[in-house]
C-alpha cells in the first residue's frame, strides 16, 4: 500500500478519533465574555462600593454598594446575588435613592408551605463577620401587601459554611392590626420576636432606611439595635447574638405568601459600617 494512502488514512482516523473523543468527553470550554468593571464603578457618580478588601475571608468594613456597578460590588468581594422560584433581580434607573441605579427584587409570593419553593431574590455578603457593625440599606416598597409574616428584608445566617449553617436574625415586614406594614424582628437563637416600638409603619411609595447594629457574641455579651430611618425600634443588650465564626448577610426580597402575590422591592445604598 502506498505510503501516501497510509498517511491519509491515518490522518483521517486521527481526526475521527479526535472528534469522537471530543464528543465523548463533551468538550465544554469556558469562554469568559464579561467581567466586572471596577473602572466603571469609579466613574459612576462616586456611588459605587467603597471596599475594604480582605484576604482572610473576613467581611471588610466599611463597605457599600449603590448598584452603580451592577452586582459587581458583591461579586468582587466574594458575595453573590441570586433569584429563584419565579423571582428576578434587575438593576433599574428609577426609583433610586442616590446615584443612577438601584436594585429591584421581584418575588412571587404564591408558595406552598414548602420551604424550598419560596420565591426569593437577594444579594449576599459572606465571610467572617465583623465583631460589631451597622448593617443598613434603603428600601422602597411601592404598594401595600398582606403578608403571612414571613416577608423578609434582612437575614443573618451563621455557621461553618453555607451548607453547614443556621439562621440568626431576621428583619421582616408584617401587617399590624390596621393592615399597615411594620418591621418585625426574629431572634432565631432564642426563637423570639422581640417587640418593635417607637417607629411608625413603613412608608409606602417612598424610601426608608433600615439599619441593625450587631455586636456579635456567643455568650451573653452581645448587643442588637434596630433603627428605622435613624430611630431606634429595638435595643437589646447582654444576649447571645451570634454563636458562629462565619456568617452571611442577605439583603433583598423573600416571601412565602403575599396578597397580591407579585411584589417588587427596590433597594439602594447598602452599607456595612463600623460599630462602637
Amino acid at each position, binding site marked *: 500500500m502506498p505510503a501516501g494512502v497510509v498517511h491519509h488514512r491515518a490522518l483521517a482516523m486521527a481526526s475521527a478519533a479526535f472528534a469522537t473523543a*471530543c464528543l465523548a468527553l463533551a468538550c465544554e470550554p469556558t*469562554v469568559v465574555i*464579561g467581567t466586572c468593571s471596577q473602572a466603571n464603578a469609579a466613574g459612576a457618580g462616586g456611588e459605587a462600593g467603597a471596599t475594604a478588601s480582605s484576604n482572610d475571608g473576613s467581611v471588610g468594613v466599611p463597605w457599600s454598594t449603590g448598584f452603580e*456597578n*451592577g452586582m459587581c460590588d458583591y461579586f468582587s468581594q466574594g458575595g453573590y446575588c*441570586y*433569584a429563584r422560584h419565579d*423571582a428576578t*433581580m434587575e438593576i433599574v434607573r428609577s426609583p433610586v435613592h442616590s446615584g443612577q441605579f438601584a436594585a429591584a427584587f421581584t418575588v412571587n409570593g404564591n408558595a406552598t408551605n414548602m420551604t424550598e419553593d419560596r420565591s426569593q431574590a437577594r444579594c449576599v455578603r459572606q465571610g467572617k463577620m465583623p465583631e460589631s457593625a451597622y448593617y443598613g440599606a434603603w428600601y422602597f416598597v411601592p404598594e401595600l401587601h398582606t403578608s403571612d409574616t414571613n416577608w423578609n428584608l434582612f437575614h443573618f445566617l451563621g455557621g461553618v459554611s453555607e451548607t453547614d449553617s443556621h439562621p440568626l436574625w431576621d428583619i421582616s415586614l408584617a401587617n399590624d392590626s390596621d393592615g399597615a406594614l411594620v418591621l418585625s424582628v426574629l431572634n432565631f437563637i432564642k426563637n423570639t420576636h422581640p417587640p418593635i416600638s417607637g417607629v411608625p409603619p413603613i412608608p409606602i411609595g417612598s424610601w426608608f432606611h433600615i439599619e441593625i447594629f450587631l455586636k456579635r457574641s456567643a455568650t451573653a455579651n452581645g448587643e442588637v439595635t434596630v433603627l428605622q430611618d435613624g430611630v431606634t425600634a429595638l435595643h437589646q443588650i447582654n444576649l447571645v447574638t451570634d454563636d458562629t465564626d462565619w456568617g452571611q448577610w442577605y439583603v433583598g426580597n423573600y416571601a412565602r405568601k403575599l396578597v397580591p402575590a407579585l411584589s417588587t422591592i427596590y433597594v439602594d445604598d447598602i452599607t456595612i459600617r463600623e460599630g462602637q
Partner: protein
Amino acid sequence: MTLRLASAAVGLATLFSAAPSFAQGGVQLRWQAPLNCPQEAQVRQKLRDLLGTSASDASASRLRAEGSIEPVGERFRLTLNIHYDLVNGTRVVQAASCEDLGGVAAVTLAILFRAEHSSGAPLTAHDLGGASTSALADARTAGTENQTGDANSHAEGSETRAENAQKGAQNSAQNGAQKKTTTDELEPKDSPHASDASDSNATRWHFVLSAPELRTDIGALPNAGYGLGFGAGARHDAWRFLISGTFWLAQEYQPGPFVGYGAHFGRMSGELSGCHGFQVAGFELSPCLLFTVDDVAARGTGTGISSSNPRTAWLSVGAGLQGLWSLGRQAALVFGVNGRVATSRPRFVSEGVGEISQVGPAAVGVVLGCEWLL
C-alpha cells in the same frame, strides 16, 4: 430572417458533429405518419446517424416522445410531444413536404439527448418546448404564424428551416471536423450546451456559484439564527462540492433571572459540503455531508459588565438533504434542511452573572438559495 434560420439550423447540426461518445438508444419514440411520409424506423435511423455509430448501445435517457405528422391542406404538420420524467413540451412544425419533418423530429430529439447528457442539470419544460433550440423554436413559431395568415411565406420559411436542419445534421454526421469550425463560429462560447462532446471530461466539471443563500438555524446559539451566505464549488456529474460562508444577524440574549444581564453574539460560519444528486421528476434531490465551523464573538452585557468581546470557534459535522429545482440550464432554486452535531460546546460565562449560554449539542438549519451553473 433566412440567414438567421439557416445559421441556426447549421448550428444545430454542428452540435452533433463531434458527438460519437454519446450513445443513443434510450429515447423512446412513438411515431404516426401517413404512408408517404417518413416512418418510425426512418426517424430512428436518422437519430442514430446524428448521434453516432454506437446508437444501438442504450445510453440511459429519460426522454420519451410521441410524434405525428398530419396533412393540413396541401401542407404537413409535425406535432412532437416530448416528455422528460414529468416535464412535458410540445413542438409543432409545418412544411410543404412531410419528408423534411422526419428529419426535424430526429434533430430535435438528438439535441435534447445531447443536452441531457452534457450537464448534470435536468432538462426543463423550457428545453422541451424548444426555446433553447432556436431553429426549431423558430420553426414552431412559424408554424403557428402559418395559421394566422401570410401562409405562403411562413410555410416556405419553415420548409427552408426543416431542410437546413436535416441537411445540416446529415452533413455533421459525415464531416465532424469541418463542422466543428462552424460550431465555434456560431455557438455562444459560454453555453454549456455548445461544448464539444469530444472534450467530455471538461464538460462534466462545472463551476457552481451558490448565491444568495438565506439560512436559519436553531441550536447553535440561544436564539434562532438568521444569515445570508454565499458559496462556490464544482459539480461533477451528480456530485456537488461547495464551500460556503454565512454572516449571521447578531443576537442579544438574556437568560434571566438577572434582568438586563446577558450577552451579545456575533457569528460567522463556514461550511464544506459534498452532495450527490438524484433526479426525481423535475427535481434533483441531494443528500449531503456537511462540515461546519462556527465562529462566534460574544460580549457580556449588563450594568457594570465589561468585555473584550472574545471569539471562539467550534466544528460541527452533520448531514442534510437538498432539493434543486431547475430554473433553466444554468440556474436552480435550492432548498435544504440539515442537522449537525457540535464537537465542542463552549460555555459563555459572565462574571458574577454566571453562565449565559452554552452551545447546543446539535443544531438544525434550513437554507434557501439560488445555485448557478457556470
